[in-house]
């Protein structure tokens, strides 16, 4: 006699498993799973409450700041260490932090074009701490109208900034090499800076014991952009959809940088600084000149040896007489559109950028405050701080916003330059071929990015 099995058979189990797997695949195919749903933020005027997650660096907004914010604002503030990979994954999954660290100068168009960042104009309009006439012009880098950076709504705000092509120099190394220290008022010419860098460089066999110069700044593309601007040209087209490294001005910029790289007087992709950034190398007395911006001075306040020799100078220029002293960072905070608690997020952001933490940051000397009223708090106690303050205040006159493309991340552009640069430095390719390679690959990236935003 056969027994009919009315219970849970293997065939039925496998069938259910197949349905579950198919459902999982179907969920993956659903458009909703690939896009972030706009968050239903708190209504305007509602009291900020709940939990706010801040993604930043521990040294800028860490657990200590989170606790202070929680006490000051009555919201629960959590922190997540900033990581681009994690942020991208969180944004893609529709579950981003509420407040995110960002570099306004290079990221604003990219974020706005992808409708990721919240328009903060309504929040600024109602702010009691940030007044329109008190906002430093550098914050315009956080503005984008869809075509041009520097105008349109605000999508973020700087916590502080520097004009990143200004010079910190080690006066002791200059004196030892019998090189005249840079003037505090008259910018150095770039060709002179290069020659002086060669004289300041010291070697022990094949090893460089003192770098004469590091002009790499915050990234090769931004520096080449600036150098081209100084030469009187534009690297990026007006529609921000293409670059041209072949123009005479861009070629001048490329040639200057290649001369620097071939001279072996500072870090390059072929010979990187093992420290990874200029601070430790400068403090150790192993770097004579760096284009690093006012913020680096915060490092010397607690280092008497470095403070004694550090000096600050205006951003250099080509002999064209054109002075441009941009900001390529304006590191600050922005709120994702998909944030689930925008009101509370804004309260945290406003407190951090314009409240007590902003005053403490201003006094620390780690950057220029984003509000004009706070700039008087910048440190001037030590001689180098007073000198840097005076130079910096005069340098502000030469600030202007440089537009960056919304189609491609700076990382991707810098990766192309880093990949092609070794051949140009070694002389395997000429400057012209280098420019052609950059044009071809970067423009392909830009075209692809633009196509995806159609």
């Amino acid at each position, binding site marked *: 006699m056969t*027994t009919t*099995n009315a*219970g*849970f*058979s*293997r065939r039925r*189990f496998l069938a259910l*498993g197949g349905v*579950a*797997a198919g459902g*999982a*695949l179907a*969920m*993956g*195919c659903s*458009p909703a*799973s*690939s*896009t*972030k749903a706009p968050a239903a933020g708190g209504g305007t005027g509602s009291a900020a409450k709940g939990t706010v997650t801040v993604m930043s660096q521990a040294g800028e907004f860490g657990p200590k700041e989170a606790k202070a914010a929680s006490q000051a604002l009555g919201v629960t503030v959590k922190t997540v260490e900033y*990581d*681009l*990979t994690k942020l*991208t*994954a969180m*944004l*893609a999954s529709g579950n981003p932090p509420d407040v995110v660290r960002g570099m306004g100068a290079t990221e604003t168009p990219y974020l706005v*074009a*992808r*409708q*990721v960042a919240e328009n903060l104009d309504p929040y600024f309009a109602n702010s009691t701490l940030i007044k329109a006439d008190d906002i430093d012009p550098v914050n315009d880098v956080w503005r984008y109208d869809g075509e041009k950076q520097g105008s349109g709504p605000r999508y973020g705000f700087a916590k502080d900034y520097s004009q990143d092509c200004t010079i910190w120099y080690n006066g002791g190394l200059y004196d030892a090499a019998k090189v005249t220290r840079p003037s505090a008022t008259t910018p150095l010419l770039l060709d002179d800076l290069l020659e002086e860098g060669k004289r300041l460089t010291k070697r022990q*066999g*094949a*090893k460089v014991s003192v770098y004469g110069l590091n002009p790499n700044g915050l990234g090769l593309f931004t520096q080449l952009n600036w150098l081209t601007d100084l030469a009187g040209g534009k690297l990026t087209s007006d529609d921000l959809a293409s670059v041209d490294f072949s123009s005479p001005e861009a070629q001048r910029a490329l040639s200057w940088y290649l001369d620097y790289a071939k001279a072996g007087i500072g870090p390059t*992709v*072929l*010979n*990187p600084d*093992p420290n*990874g950034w200029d601070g430790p190398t400068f403090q150790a007395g192993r770097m004579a000149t760096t284009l690093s911006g006012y913020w680096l001075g915060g490092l010397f306040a607690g280092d008497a040896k470095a403070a004694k020799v550090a000096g600050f100078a205006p951003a250099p220029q080509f002999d064209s007489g054109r002075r441009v002293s941009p900001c390529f960072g304006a590191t600050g905070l922005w709120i994702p559109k998909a944030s689930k608690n925008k009101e509370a997020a804004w309260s945290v952001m406003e407190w951090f950028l314009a409240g007590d933490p902003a005053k403490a940051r201003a006094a620390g000397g780690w950057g220029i405050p984003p509000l004009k009223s706070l700039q008087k708090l910048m440190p001037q106690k030590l001689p180098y701080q007073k000198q840097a303050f005076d130079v910096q205040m005069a340098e502000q006159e030469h600030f202007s916003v440089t537009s960056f493309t919304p189609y*491609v*991340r700076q*990382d*991707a552009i*810098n*990766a192309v330059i*880093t*990949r092609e640069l*070794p051949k140009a430095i070694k002389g395997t390719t000429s400057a012209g071929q280098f420019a052609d390679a950059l044009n071809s690959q970067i423009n392909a*990236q830009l075209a*692809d*990015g633009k*196509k*995806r*935003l*159609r």
Partner: protein
Amino acid sequence: MERPGRKKKPAPLRKARTFYLFVAPWIIGFIALTVFPLGYAFWLSLTDSDGLSPKTHFVGFDNYLEIFRDPLTMSSLAKTGVFALVTVPLSILAGLLLAVMVNQRIRARGLFRALIYLPAVVPPVGAALTFRLIFDRDAGAANGVLSGLGADPITWLVDPNVRYVLYALVLWGCGGSMIISLAGLQDIPRELLEAAQVDGASYWQSFTRITIPLLSPVILFQVITGVIGSLQSFAPLLLSSGSLSGAGTVPQGNYMYMIHVFAQYFSASRFGYASAMLWLLFAVILLVTLVIIKVSAKTVFYTVEPEGTR
């Protein structure tokens, strides 16, 4: 005549239910953590998604076609192939030689086995970062030794020297291969080796005609797992020579396929294209594994025939 009403469940049904109950966690995990991500990645690969913008377009198999037209992708795949061809045989050979050595009756044999195996249990991230420090140009121990010998320091972590750092990192972990080979060696009947010795075979003859054939299934296992691991290599490449700030900092000599995938995802924000690259890698690994298994049919000797082949 059967009585109507509730029937007691037969034993086979109860056993089946218990079986599925115990495997259900794995099946749920498999669906949630393998099938779903695979399906989602495949869907992404058919779009031009950048992971952020709501403007995502279906592009069919364009991403897959672009892979074959992209010289950078093809070169990274070629470099990965060369990496696998170099490191897998070297690792297996080094592991086998070490296993033969520690299989001898020597004093403190256990200590040697433990010390040689120890690097294999160090987390790969820690190992990569440590190698980065060792091969640091200014403060690294490697250049310290060179300076002590009167030689000029070498910039290890850039092209063209960085690939040697990578090979050193891979070979440093050959203790794992040693342990597997050692287990295989200890499974070889001593009587066979003694009989060969009695018949006048030399050590080399015994090794090549008895030991290696009997060890061939173990070597096959190491070849397959080694090839799969090397084709998927990522963390040691990124951390030993690049930085977490971006794959663009990895020197071209170490710019392998998974580094390129990472760059496409998180630097270029080309989620669709990067997902297509991953599916292609999956297909390549599958194909390579099938080829290896096919070739091994004539070169691998099993002491016991697999079931169903008699």
